[in-house]
């Protein structure tokens, strides 16, 4: 187990280093380079020169990377002249809202998808399984913003129970809940379709496995079979999948935030893209990537904790 954790941690570090090189490369390829990207196109030649010296950008590229990476580690990701705020400050303001949106919708998706997949696997190829599979396939084949629009049409335009935008997020707990409901739901449904498909197939595999036949031969009831023998074994693989899905969930949040005007990192990023505000763009990419890597790491540790074959090694 310790060996596994140490090695997995090492992998995460290697991945982060490669990602940082990629981002630094993009930064470098920008018209005008790093300084222009920070100061914006209207900066004077003098201030450009000054910052170049100050940031050590006249040094060899390896040293430049070192300086940039060191700054990034300290949370110094540059300054957005468009928003007149440091990128670090912007992120610390927007990131928690994302964690809230993504976290809730992810937990909700797991809470729905795991029992659903378990049930479908148990009822495999029966009418109710087919119906649920078809529904999930439709969700799966739908752009997330269309899903959001359908929710808006039904729950806002037809039955006016929930607000269609999240612009006034942060004005109080009551509003926050009602404001969050639609984005969370829209983000969650897509994931439910994906997780439950996987959970179903994993359940089917487990139900057909030899050890389940042994349990049946002992006289285990379906309830016992599913909860004691199948759930945990199917969860182990699903947990890893959830970790690997994080980048897609975060991508989904970008769209959903744009649709609902939810003031999270996705919206920040989108606005920055339209303004070509590169320090913000790169800072956000770096942060969401770190979030993904950490999420993956946690998922794998969860996997290791669930599977005794790794735990006792």
């Amino acid at each position: 187990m310790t060996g596994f954790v140490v090695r997995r941690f090492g992998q995460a570090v290697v991945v982060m280093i490669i990602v940082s090189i990629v981002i630094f490369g993009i930064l470098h390829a920008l018209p005008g380079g790093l300084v222009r990207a920070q100061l914006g196109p209207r900066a004077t030649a003098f201030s450009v020169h000054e910052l170049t010296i100050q940031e050590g950008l006249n040094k060899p590229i390896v040293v430049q990377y070192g300086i940039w990476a060191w700054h990034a580690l300290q949370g110094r990701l540059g300054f957005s002249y468009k928003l007149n705020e440091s990128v670090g400050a912007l992120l610390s303001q927007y990131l928690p809202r994302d964690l809230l949106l993504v976290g809730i919708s992810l937990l909700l998706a797991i809470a729905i998808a795991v029992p659903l997949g378990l049930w479908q696997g148990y009822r495999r190829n029966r009418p109710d399984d087919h119906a649920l599979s078809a529904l999930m396939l439709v969700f799966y084949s739908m752009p997330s913003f269309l899903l959001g629009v359908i929710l808006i049409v039904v729950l806002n335009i037809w039955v006016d129970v929930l607000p269609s935008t999240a612009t006034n997020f942060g004005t109080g707990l009551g509003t926050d809940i009602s404001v969050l409901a639609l984005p969370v739901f829209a983000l969650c449904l897509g994931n439910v379709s994906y997780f439950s498909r996987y959970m179903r197939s994993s359940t089917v595999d487990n139900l057909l496995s030899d050890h389940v036949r042994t349990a049946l031969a002992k006289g285990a009831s379906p309830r016992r079979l599913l909860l004691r023998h199948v759930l945990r074994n199917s969860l182990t693989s699903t947990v890893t999948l959830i970790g690997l899905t994080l980048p897609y969930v975060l991508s989904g949040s970008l769209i959903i935030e744009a649709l609902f005007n939810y003031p999270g990192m996705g919206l920040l990023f989108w606005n920055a893209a339209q303004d070509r505000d590169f320090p913000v763009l790169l800072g956000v990419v770096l942060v969401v990537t770190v979030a993904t890597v950490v999420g993956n790491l946690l998922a794998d540790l969860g996997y290791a904790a669930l599977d005794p074959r790794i735990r006792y090694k």
Partner: protein
Amino acid sequence: MKQRILDVEHLRTEFHLRSVNVAAVDDVSLTIDQGECVGLVGESGCGKSTTGLSIMRLLPRSGHVTSGRVLLDGRDLVPLSEAEMRQVRGRAVSMIFQDPMTSLNPTMTIGAQVAEPLVIHFGSSKKAALDRTLETLHLVGIPNPRERVDDYPHQLSGGLRQRVMIATALAAEPKLLIADEPTTALDVTIQAQILDLLDRLREELSMAVLLITHDMGVIAGRTDRVMVMYAGKMVEAATTDELFAATRHPYAEALLQSIPQLTQDASARLPSIPGHPPDLSRLPPGCRFAPRCRYASPACVEEPPLEEAAAGHLVACFHPVGVLPGSGAAAAWSAPGAPSGIPEPPLPPATTPLEPSGAPSRDGDPMPPDAATRRLALAAAPVLVEVDHLVKEYPVRGGGMRRRVGSVKAVSDVSFGIRRGETFGLVGESGCGKSTLGRMVAALERPTSGTVRLGGDELLRLRGADLRRRRRELQLMFQDPYASLDPRMRVGSILREPLVVQGVGDRRQQWETVASLLDEVGLSRRAVDLYPHEFSGGQRQRIGLARALTLNPRLVVADEPVSALDVSIQSQILNLMKALQRNHGLTYLVISHDLAVLRYLSDTIGVMYLGKMVELGAADDIYARPAHPYTHGLIQAIPVPDPSIEKAKRSAAVRGELPSAVNPPSGCRFRTRCPLAQEICAEEEPPLRGFGPGHVAACHFPLLSPSADQQAGGAPVVSVTSEPAPGAS
């Protein structure tokens, strides 16, 4: 009379496949009394496992019991609801399965799994369940149950896992235990231990046991009565002694004859059953065995009823063996499917060209002329393969930095030689390093140290094109007929590939070679246009053999060439291998866990244990006069299809389980399991000593006294004795 536990009457189980209904079990009846062990034997697909699952009502979704009754203590299980059936499973009837690796839940402790039936059926408290679990684990021979109870299955060896499996089945003290191939996945020494355990438990608990197996040897030693199944039908049923002494059904007779036995005359052809079992969705009319039966007559288009041939001996055949004059010993094998009105199996009359017109039966026929001359010729033949102090170790990495923490000693200082035209058999249990050794001889793997020479040259010294060109001299045959052929290539391309790679001949010549090879291995030439999945396992193994021969190699390395095949098919392949050796002057290195197969096939046998060659000698010597206790134990552990021999055996000859190859025991590696081990065995590694011409063994306390003049050290190039070994035939 003892109490009747199980009474199955006219059971019929059907599966709904895509378009057809298939009766996997057709009109099967059997009874088991208290304390009795009844065997159900047959080849794969004959419906024996399905019978077991039908009794438990554990059939896969597509399967249903369509008629018949399953009376357990007089109560019919067939009409029970699923909830009522759950009360029966695990409490009145338990079942254990073939593969202990996959049959236990990897995420539950073994304690929880053994306790599960108690919790389900008796609602036992934690404390009570734990006590009973410890008791059961102790009963099945798990050492230190209290320490083991919180282990997970992956922490146990295969033998211990099967013991745990048995413990889960016995926790609730069922009246009937169904054991479905309980030892097939285990090594012979472990198999003997597990079967002993089942015997002991049956007596102690006076349980009824239904033992399902394909192995006639297991049947002979462990059962009171036997039922033989073929293609879903019961064809013969009798007490075990009666069945082996007076076999009536031609299938059962042929099955028994086609098993290579340790006492077999190796130079005689092994009788085999032509063709293969029928497809259940397209059965021949009447007797299902008729197309492969040597006694079949036009009458066999009717279905023979299961009738009493003698007291308590049922047989379903119009021409039972030993009843009709002219059948039995004197009969010749008729060409397969010869009688009119009986459809021949559609694809190739696979064995026709190879079936002899007058195969010798077990008791008749003196040694064919070439047996003695073969020994003489071999003794004079030059050495083709020289293996010299071969060592292979695999690093074991662990910890966070994946540094080397040890090594698996797969092969440790092994030396031997193979003469041209000889068959060298390498035997040992799984994990003994025999396959690794085979791969090194086949130049597929580099040794850590030591050398392998083929015709005097060290192939792995060569590089690039030279090595590739020389590779034609040695070819491989594999165990798994499903994995050894590329599923996306037609058989023609598969067989032509070696010729194309080596640039042998032009297109036309290549196709001619392919065609003649197909003739030789007994396959229709139409096979070139077909894909591997269209062939049965035995036919695929023929294709594999043909591929190995395309380049006319000098040496063929065959790793478990028949262990994936049914007995009736296995003998076909063994005969074919022998015939091809004669025709092509081949040299074989055959690797197998089955000493009986090697005894039949080989001139010389090497016995490996945990990376060491512990004994080496002429096949007859190894069998008749083993010097090493391990060899002796291995021979003892092999179940022989003869109740008188089998039931006389006391208990498993080799104790315990294979130690880890990462930290092998000091001194003699076998000492931890050896009945004769003393202190010196732990301190000093025994050298190889001679026990007769070409017979060496490494043991401090051999079962024979070593010959004084023979000092075998270094690299003994074994010469095969020119005298026929006494006591062999």
